[in-house]
């Protein structure tokens, strides 16, 4: 049973805005797969099936001041934080103006100085310890920003993740750790990844609240984040949230999940598609009609087309700039 949308305390406008973000996440990602298939970009890795929880998560923060250290499936929350579809496109096409890395990192390595989204590498979970520094900065400066960092459930087993949680617990850092648990680390299923029932149990083991939420339940997710963000902002310390989500696609453009997921499994994925469930809820609870959704969809597609065209027209990084910004003095 999903929590009713009105229990969120959000206005209708805000809920509709949330839907737009969720849908934009989906549609933009679909476009990126297309671009990958036709060879315009060489790689994609997507948040399909994570978007509802991701958007709920991001909406619990104040994007003007809070910091975000995402991982590669977090396109939707980066959009909530302020990045534009064009920004994402520039990254996937590896363009000079890509705000994430200026074409230096692979697609889906999100970052934006303008929007307080701190660059992450491909090496999983290093953002967890980096986030402790960002959060400690708030304490030092006596600022009330809260820091958010995310990773996958496979990556959450990296030792550094526990080191970061341990330190955050000790210093009561204003830092929200998130594990987006889609049950797979590429082909490796839950049973081979960890033995505890819930990963959120690791919260208390490191001195903080640990909450598991259903990432398909927008309100459950949003309220859980709202609470821990408020607490963190008040100085009550960090929290760990395990967000249960579904990976609807293969791991990435380099993977084919039909090798290790049965046909049945793959067919069943649709039942857990958070977008479809969210749409049903929006209709059932009278926030939007199917018609209105179609209109939004059309608008978003136009925006995506425009972003694609504009991004494609932008220049590539120049070969002669390869040594730029290796050090501060070059």
């Amino acid at each position, binding site marked *: 049973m999903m929590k009713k949308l009105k229990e969120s305390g959000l206005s209708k406008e805000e809920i509709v805005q949330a839907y737009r973000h969720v849908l934009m996440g989906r549609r933009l990602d679909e476009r990126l797969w297309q671009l990958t298939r036709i060879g315009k970009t*060489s*790689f994609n890795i997507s948040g399909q099936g994570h978007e509802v929880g991701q958007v709920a998560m991001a909406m619990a923060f104040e994007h003007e001041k809070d910091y975000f250290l995402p991982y590669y499936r977090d396109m939707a929350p980066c959009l909530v934080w302020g990045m534009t579809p064009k920004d994402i496109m520039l990254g996937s096409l*590896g*363009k*000079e103006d890509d705000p994430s*890395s200026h*074409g*230096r*990192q*692979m*697609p889906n*390595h999100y970052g934006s100085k303008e929007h307080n989204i701190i660059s992450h*590498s*491909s*090496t*999983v979970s290093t953002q967890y310890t980096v986030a402790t520094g960002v959060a400690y900065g708030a304490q030092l400066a006596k600022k009330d920003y809260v820091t958010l960092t995310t990773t996958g459930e*496979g*990556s959450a*087993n*990296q*030792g*550094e993740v526990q080191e970061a949680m341990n330190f955050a617990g000790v210093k009561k850092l204003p830092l929200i750790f998130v594990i987006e648990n889609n049950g797979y*680390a*590429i*082909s*490796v299923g839950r049973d*081979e*990844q*960890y033995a505890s029932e819930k990963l959120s149990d690791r919260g208390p083991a490191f001195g903080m609240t640990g909450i598991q939420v259903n990432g398909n339940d927008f309100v459950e997710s949003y309220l859980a984040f709202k609470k821990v963000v408020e607490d963190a902002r008040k100085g009550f310390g960090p929290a760990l949230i395990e967000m249960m989500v579904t990976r609807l696609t293969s791991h990435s453009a*380099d*993977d084919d999940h039909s*090798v*290790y997921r049965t046909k049945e499994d793959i067919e069943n994925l649709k039942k857990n598609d958070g977008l479809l469930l969210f749409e049903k809820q929006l209709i059932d609870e009278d926030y939007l009609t199917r018609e209105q959704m179609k209109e939004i969809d059309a608008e978003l597609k136009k925006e995506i087309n425009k972003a694609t065209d504009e991004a494609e027209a932008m220049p*590539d*990084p*120049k*070969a*002669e*700039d*390869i*040594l730029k910004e*290796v050090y501060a003095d070059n």
Partner: protein
Amino acid sequence: MAMMTYLEAIHKGIEEEMARDENVVIFGEDVGGVKGGVFGVTKGLAEMFGDDRCFNTPLTEGLIGGLAVGLGTVGYRAIGEFQFADYLLPAVNQLISEASRMRYRTQGDWTAPITFRAPYGGGVRGGLYHSQSTEKVLFGQPGLRIVTPSSPRDAKGLIKAAIRCDDPVVFYEHKRLYRLLKEDVPEDDYVVPIDKANVVREGDDITVIGYGMVLNHALKAAETLSKEGYEAEVVDVRSIYPLDKETLVKAAKKTGKVLLVTEDNLEGSVMSEISAIIAEEALFDLDSPIRRLAGPDSPSMPYALPLEREFLISEEKVLDAMRELAEF
């Protein structure tokens, strides 16, 4: 003989060793089950040898390192896979502090005979973190061996040698060569020596030393250069650490003109040590400065195509450098 890619040859070598010795086990991220590795090197091994001997680990490279060391102490021959050579960095402490020293710090009482596999190298649009040559990070850690094959034939024989070796061996596999190279590979049980460089082409005019993708470039460039009247001696380093000094110095002395090629950054690469050895032992046989051809000193290769291309050593760049040296 059978036609095999570089990837198939590695697979075959592992399969043969697992069949030959039941103490050989293999593991890593996505290594087990039906996936059999993100590149498919271990595909089928779990079915063939059981899920106990070929299995997935959680996403934790430090654990892969320690697990392998522990198995070594109780008599197993572990093959630990790092999914990408870039991702052995979280295991550096295990590799240097434990694997490479177990034998030395107990004067042989406890040992860690391990093969760590590490797919490396660029040119796959992998950007900063899926393209690296990390062998320099582990280079110069006595107790550890680092090897890499540059042909399918060597790939099979060398992985078998690594598995049988009583030392911990980091076995680098060039990702670009996986499917690019194909040749006749013996179907019988042979090993390639774990500690020997290999003169893959003889020539009297210049000496080119390298391994991996750039060695293949050098071989092709040598043919072109031959038509121009210069013959290149081409040496595959193969045993990256410890180096086969004898073969390297001999090849350097033979022509007196040495070109060292690596797709790693210029500074701090394996080629620097080779240069130092030659400068120490063959200086008066040299007719020209020891020339290194390498990537620029940027932190690995960026993703965007113009940048990746700028970073990579191409056949053309190798040929130019060889020609220049020949004409010196």
